[in-house]
């Protein structure tokens, strides 16, 4: 099954994209796939929660995201432009429950 995502890029442009749930993708990889941000400015560490280049602000409160693990928490404690609704895209696996998720990509740092 494909789910719908609304992703606002760093220029403020909204992208409505579809993401498959059966390919073991995470949100960072989906953003990469759709080139929401230029190559080299997103997913720099490859998804190891080590660079925060996929930091995004989660706008949809009604969707339950997987709980934050220690790696992600530690990275966000060092990252810039962090808000209460910050998450690392690479730590959010694409799953059916995420259908309708709305996020905004955080500025590059």
């Amino acid at each position, binding site marked *: 099954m494909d789910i719908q995502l609304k992703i606002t890029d760093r220029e403020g442009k909204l992208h409505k994209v579809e993401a498959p749930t059966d390919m073991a993708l995470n949100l960072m990889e989906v953003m990469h796939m759709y080139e929401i941000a230029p190559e*080299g400015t997103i997913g720099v560490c490859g998804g190891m929660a080590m*660079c925060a280049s996929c930091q995004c602000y989660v706008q949809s409160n009604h969707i339950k995201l997987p709980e934050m693990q220690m790696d992600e928490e530690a990275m966000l*404690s060092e990252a810039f432009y962090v808000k209460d609704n910050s998450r690392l895209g690479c730590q959010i696996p694409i799953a059916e429950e995420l259908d309708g998720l709305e996020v905004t990509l955080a500025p590059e740092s």
Partner: protein
Amino acid sequence: MIKTDILIIGAGPTGLFTVFEAGLLKLKCHLIDGLPQPGGQLAELYPKKPIYDIPGYPEVSAGSLVDNLMEQIKPFQPGFTLGEKATHLKKLDNGNFVVTTDEGTEHEAPIVAIAGGLGSFEPRKPALENLDFYEKRGVHYMVKNPQDFKNKDVVIAGGGDSALDWSIVLSDIASSVTLIHRRSEFRGALESVDRVKDLKDVGKINLITPAEITALHGKEKLESLSIKKNDSDETFQLSTDHFIPLFGLSPKLGPIANWGLEIEKNAIKVDNSLDYQTNIPGIYAIGDVNTYPGKLKLILCGFHEATMMCQSAFKKINPNKKYVMKYTTVGGVTGFDGSKKEAPKAVVKSLD
């Protein structure tokens, strides 16, 4: 002027393996890397993380892979310019290239292999007003020489290994060390965290957490910082000579982008049907730094690209020499250091 056959920019896995393949062809290599140690991202970002897709290794840690590559290329005596960033490229009348670093070190070679990975690692700078002004006036993003901080007051910010490690080192040299982190938890090697705690208990490190630096002050140079305690919203000033924000490094293609190479999506376009050469003959790009249809940023692909590139470089350097590829199992490996590795000879012996 450092002279070599193949000048490799970037000492990550691809750059290191290039030395081996070039060595088999009797070509000498020299590597330039902005980081103080070889290994690129593997050494800098995730030395302890496992890699599972290196052929022949069911599992190998990034750090061990770098150690093994260093061991493998040792017989070919590569030169290293470490801790310096390649900034300028110039073509000479004799066809050679000269690459100069930010420290002014010059290197000359007929072949340049850019194995720059994600680019050079630039410090991630906190969003503080006038930060630029205080650079070289008390603000540093790395510690090059710890003795520069002798008998000075130093404030370090950050929550990772480098913040912990430098706090430990400088606590013996500086007159005071203050470590500030946005949270009370640090992410680092257990022994570093424990050591910082010990030093805090004996008063050698002044720990302020959870807190953030909100402003820099000083007329000619840095004199003090405003610090906001996150749990109480209380803000106070702390006088200091130096401020070292250590918030990690983020890779940027950097000066290479201005060398006249064809760039697409932050990567260098190469001819993947042949030899991974760029639009400038004699300059190749291999590993994560290049792009072509179907490109995969994998270490194993970088190894292949390095091998193909060295064959092409050999032909360029020796246009009149014929070359026949030899298996290392057949030909062995003869190092520039006089060492020779070869398959043990089979014996013909009666067992009676």
